[in-house]
């Protein structure tokens, strides 16, 4: 394997793909932005970004063939990192403005509006990561940049899945590490030095 892991930031029209690319390059990846499903399928790592509405992101991802790419990669054990709405769509479904949209259903759980006095949850927050977390190694005390109004508020623990939580009005899922599929509700690419540490941890994991 090359010294630098190859990473494709999947471009399906949602998310700040350039920032993801820039921060991954800075963290040591050979990163490119692409909507090419073959490239996305063969890279060492695939990043699925996403901002805006759950339903719009899901529709965009399906149009671009990203749903199949992600499913194929996960069943083959190839690493995928979802960011923000790119994390939310890994869950069973999302409910926004009364509309219930099916997600990729790689995890059970529903993405719902947070109950908090101020929304969106916008800014730098702390997280509670499990001791076994590889994603947060060396960065458990840091703050990360969140921008979202919806999140997974209840989940079932499993021995193989590491769940990191955060709080805004209530406790929600801030990150998941589950075999080849990792994801963050916050934006590591916008989380300064702390975010760079996380991306570096993911790159180290996918280089194994």
């Amino acid at each position, binding site marked *: 394997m090359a010294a630098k892991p190859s990473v494709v930031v999947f471009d399906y029209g949602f998310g*700040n793909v*350039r*920032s993801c690319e*820039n*921060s991954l390059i*800075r*963290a040591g990846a050979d990163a490119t932005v692409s909507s090419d499903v073959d490239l996305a399928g063969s890279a060492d790592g695939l990043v699925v970004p996403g*901002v*805006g*509405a759950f339903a719009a992101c899901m529709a965009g991802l399906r149009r671009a063939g990203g749903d199949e790419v992600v499913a194929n990669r996960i069943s083959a054990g190839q690493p995928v990192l979802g960011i923000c709405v790119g994390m939310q769509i890994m869950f069973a479904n999302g409910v926004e403005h009364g509309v219930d949209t099916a997600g990729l259903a790689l995890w059970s759980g529903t993405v719902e509006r947070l109950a908090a*006095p*101020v*929304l*969106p*949850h*916008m*800014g*730098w*927050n*702390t997280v509670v990561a499990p001791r076994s977390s590889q994603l947060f190694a060396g960065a458990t005390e*840091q*703050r990360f*940049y*969140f*921008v*979202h*109004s919806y999140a997974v508020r209840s989940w079932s623990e499993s021995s193989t899945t590491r769940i990191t939580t955060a*709080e*805004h009005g209530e406790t929600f899922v801030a990150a998941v590490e589950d075999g080849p599929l990792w994801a963050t509700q916050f*934006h590591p*690419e*916008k*989380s*300064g*030095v*702390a*975010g*760079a*540490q996380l991306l*570096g941890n993911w790159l180290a994991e996918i280089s194994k």
Partner: protein
Amino acid sequence: MSLAVRVIPCLDVDAGRVVKGINFRDLRDAGDPVELASRYSSRGADELIFLDITASSSQRDTMFEVVSRTAAEVFIPLTVGGGVRSVADFELLLRAGADKVGVNTAAVGRPELIAEAAQRFGSQCVVVSVDARRAPAMSSGFEVTTHGGRRGAGMDALTWLAHAAELGAGEILLNSMDADGTENGFDAEMITAARELVSVPLIASGGAGAAADFPLAVAAGADAVLAASVFHFGQVSIDEVKQELAEAGYPVRRVPSTHGH
């Protein structure tokens, strides 16, 4: 609450160059927005705002290049505002690497722009900037101004910001034109009145003169605090502001001492 109060420096950019004196020693180029953004980021800024004040339309494209270079080097959220008139302007700035786009005068003239941008790109990237001043004729006592505070819009400022939030603004940047430049502190009364009306994040702007001013804006209801000249002239450092906020009991983000790369 564990969400940190955001401390945000605002840089005025004219034809690709930062204007208003910037007083960091050891800067190679004090007029380069990218270098300043990077400096503020390493000194603890939680976000950055670029306000494009370029008057000449032929030079407006320089902003896209500035935003793109900044996004390649600075890994904290960047809001870009100034002269944004259409969904197409939003798209160009977001594509260049802005995380959020600020809209002001154009939204006052055509409020649907807020809804259109929120629908297309998501509320999280739509920052509605409101320049307000005290005006007894208005029912709330505050009036919207446009064109950098030079024109009264004849519109109640609090009614407007509540409407902006309903239309899909993800955040309100509330700038007091009375306090702006005075260095006598934020307009706490206006912040509190706004806080009671909207549940989106509120950035307080205008009037900061000393580090001790900032906790008062947060006590009044601000989620984030913005300043320009006091940071640029070195009167107050971001660290001093965070120290004051922390002493007042508000959570702040401390920048890790290790610098990657």
